[in-house]
């Protein structure tokens, strides 16, 4: 049922990567999140556009993905995580996120809107940072990245609940969060 021939067609995937990028960049800009002030406002808890956009994406995507998975059209890519990789890496990311005021996708979007700090600072920094990580990788891989593995791959496995129950509960929680943000006027 999966579109395996398309997945294996390297040239088609190069074109698709570009097309997905174009639509993604268009939507990021239209959503307002390629703007430094909007992202920094979110981290200062004065502007909740980033959270609204991300929750809306997850609300729609979670239902869509699991329906497609149920029908056999897509497969899960969820991987095992660990404290050493996800928590430590996530916190380092957070520090960089606040200093730069963009994340790896929105930095590219900001470049498209004319932000030179995103181009000369952000994108160059990301390439350098990725290179540093490649240097550190052999040491980190055996010592830190596998440290403190999480007990499960997915939330339903972790809670030992049927995945559709978890999806319904998470959808209610996320929609509730959006309603609350609106109610509070944020």
């Amino acid at each position, binding site marked *: 049922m*999966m*579109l395996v021939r398309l*997945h294996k067609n390297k040239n088609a995937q190069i074109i*698709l*990567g*570009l*097309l997905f990028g*174009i639509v*993604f960049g*268009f939507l990021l*800009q239209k959503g307002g*999140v390629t*703007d*430094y002030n909007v992202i920094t406002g979110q981290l200062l*808890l004065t502007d909740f*556009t980033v959270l*609204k*956009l*991300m*929750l*809306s*994406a997850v*609300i729609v*995507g979670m239902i*869509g*993905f699991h329906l*497609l998975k149920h029908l056999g*059209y897509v497969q899960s*890519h*969820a991987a095992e995580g660990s404290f050493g*990789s*996800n928590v*430590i*890496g996530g*916190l*380092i990311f*957070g520090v*960089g*996120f*606040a200093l730069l005021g963009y*994340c*790896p996708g929105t930095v*590219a979007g900001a470049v*498209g*809107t004319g932000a030179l700090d995103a181009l000369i*600072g*952000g*994108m160059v*920094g990301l*390439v*350098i*940072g*990725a290179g*540093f990580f490649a240097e*550190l990788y052999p040491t980190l891989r055996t010592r830190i990245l596998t440290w403190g593995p*999480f007990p499960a791959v997915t*939330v339903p*496995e972790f809670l030992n609940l049927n995945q559709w129950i978890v999806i319904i509960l*998470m959808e209610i929680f996320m929609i509730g969060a*959006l309603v609350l943000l609106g109610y509070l006027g944020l």
Partner: protein
Amino acid sequence: MFEYFTQAIWSPYVAGAGIGVLSCLAFLLSDRPIGCSTAFVKARGLIGKAINPERIAKKEYYREIIPQIDWAFMIIPGIIIGAFISAFTSGQFHVFWVPRLWGEAFGYNPIVRIIAALAGGILLGIGARWAGGCTSGHGINGSIQLSLASIITACCFFIGGIATALLIFRVIAA
């Protein structure tokens, strides 16, 4: 209808829902999550290959994330083009060095801003690869798949980001 596409801004709910649909299409057509940080590893590897191919070939990380032009690389030029089309057609495109909130707190000297952005970019690059993904790869696409690691990672992005932003703008700048 066409006017809608040249509006300066959409509701974040509409843009977000669109990204949710796009993420499902990426799983369907490309069998992968929309992630952005891998592209920077590939770019670094491609630059390294042009200078010293043997050195890059020996690095373990570039054997796992192969420096080549593929889907994961093309997403970044795509985002630049897409955001440019959106900004340009809605009259929002303008070239600048220092964004407003930064300028108000630390002044409009481009050199100061670029140094901070460069430092931030380096940490972002290290952190994204350390955690195995970014705000999109983990935050949106991992959460969509109910990945426990992705949801924890996304929380850490914002815990680290909020703490640092408050420190920078509410303590240092004040």
